[in-house]
């Protein structure tokens, strides 16, 4: 049946309707993708080798960037918080202020953003190239599930590595703050760590843990989905990689606010 063109007065509604359908359709495919990956994650056969490979790819290869950014974030925090606290004569609280900022907020968020930039983009690009060179199709026609071999191990690796990367970021950051506060600005070592023990509790650590765990799922979910659904050629891979990094970063910040509100 031939479709008659819409009257000009109805075209804006047509455009809004088309956009709405496209958004709902892509959200549906995004959700279905995650459900399929979860199904592959919890049903045998489990791809242990692929999982270990993804741990190496996402986690081990991100160690240097986490170490560097963690150290400098802690040093900047140490300096800025000290300069603020010293005005009120409260520099003794530098340790807990640095630790709480890192453990509850900056550690999970900055570690997730760094891993997204390094490993998330690489994950999307790798899967995108596998898609356009028909390697994913090759798995499918071998009657082997690409979700089981490629998506599920990445998401599971995200769940494991993001909390570990966050923990490393926190520890290195606290020592960065120590370097500036104690070794450079002359605060006593006992004050820095002693007050930290008093003010930082397990509930603060759990806030950071839950955040990092959820960021691990968000980043690997977005990046594998974008890699599986690239457009054509090198341009398609480049666009998917950019979209994956931007979307992951925005979702990290939005979800961080939501988690911060819930887990006060």
């Amino acid at each position, binding site marked *: 049946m031939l479709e008659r063109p819409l009257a000009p007065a109805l075209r804006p509604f047509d455009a809004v309707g088309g956009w709405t359908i496209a958004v709902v359709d892509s959200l549906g495919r995004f959700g279905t993708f995650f459900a399929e990956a979860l199904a592959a994650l919890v049903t045998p056969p489990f791809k242990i080798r692929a999982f270990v490979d993804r741990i190496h790819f996402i986690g081990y290869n991100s160690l240097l960037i986490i170490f560097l950014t963690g150290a400098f974030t802690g040093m900047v925090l140490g300096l800025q918080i000290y300069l603020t606290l010293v005005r009120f004569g409260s520099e003794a609280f530098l340790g807990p202020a640095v630790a709480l900022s890192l453990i509850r907020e900056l550690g999970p968020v900055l570690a997730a953003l760094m891993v997204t930039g390094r490993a998330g983009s690489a994950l999307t690009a790798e899967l995108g190239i596998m898609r356009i*060179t028909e*390697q994913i199709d*090759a798995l*499918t*026609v071998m009657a*082997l599930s690409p979700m089981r071999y490629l998506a599920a191990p990445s998401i599971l690796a995200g769940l494991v590595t993001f909390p570990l990367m966050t923990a490393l970021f926190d520890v290195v950051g606290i020592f960065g703050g120590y370097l500036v506060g104690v070794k450079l600005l002359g605060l006593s070592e006992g004050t820095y760590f002693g007050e930290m023990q008093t003010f930082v509790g397990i509930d603060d650590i759990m806030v950071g843990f839950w955040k990092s765990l959820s960021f691990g799922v968000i980043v690997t979910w977005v990046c594998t989905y974008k890699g599986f659904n690239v457009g054509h050629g090198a341009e398609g891979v480049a666009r998917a990689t950019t979209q994956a990094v931007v979307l992951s970063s925005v979702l990290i910040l939005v979800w961080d606010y939501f988690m911060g509100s819930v887990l006060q």
Partner: protein
Amino acid sequence: MIKVEGLTKSFGPQKVLRELSLDVATGTITIVIGRSGGGKSVFLKHLIGLFRPDAGRIMVDGVDISRLRGRDLDEIRRTYGVVFQGGALFDSMSCFDNVAFPLREKVRTPPDELAKRVEAALAQVGLEGVGAKYPAEISGGMRKRVAIARALVTEPQIVFFDEPTTGLDPVLVNTIHHLILDLHRRFRFTAVVVSHEIPEIFEIADTVAMLHEGRIVEVGPPAAIQGSTNPVVQKFIKGEPDTGS
């Protein structure tokens, strides 16, 4: 036997396949020829279950695979071997691991037997000793041969070749064609080859089908296709340029 009836597929407003019908007899080599962008690869992707048709049926040994999903479709795919246009080798794996992959994952072959079968498969395509190399370290022709070895290592009943000689020099084109013929004589699989290597491909074909504007416009033995009076077929075989519009 593969029986395709009334296969229709559109992408948006563009109709790619229009009620395409074709029979592929068991144990034969059927070549699908046609111009670039004419729907050959789309047709092949329907046969291997990567695309679902808008209408029509694809019967493989009496089962309509266009209605199958999940495990049922995988059961049919286990009888398939597919050689993709670019080879589709896993570039994170060595050539040995690429060929071993379906044996490890699909058939769960014991390690000692696996090594023997992989070496034998590589030897069949004339690539002894390249197992340790990665796809990026070998030439395009060698990659195609590794892809053929991977497709055949599980001894499939039906093998699909998507333009297996694209981008190769004339010597390699003939080498690959004779390799397909030689392996077909040895293993007696049913082969569907999408190609536009005219006239070299006629040497290995039992049946040739000409796909034009989404339909099979002529089908028959190579000699009949070469002697066809259909102007579309003749124009394609002779490589005459478009003169209209």
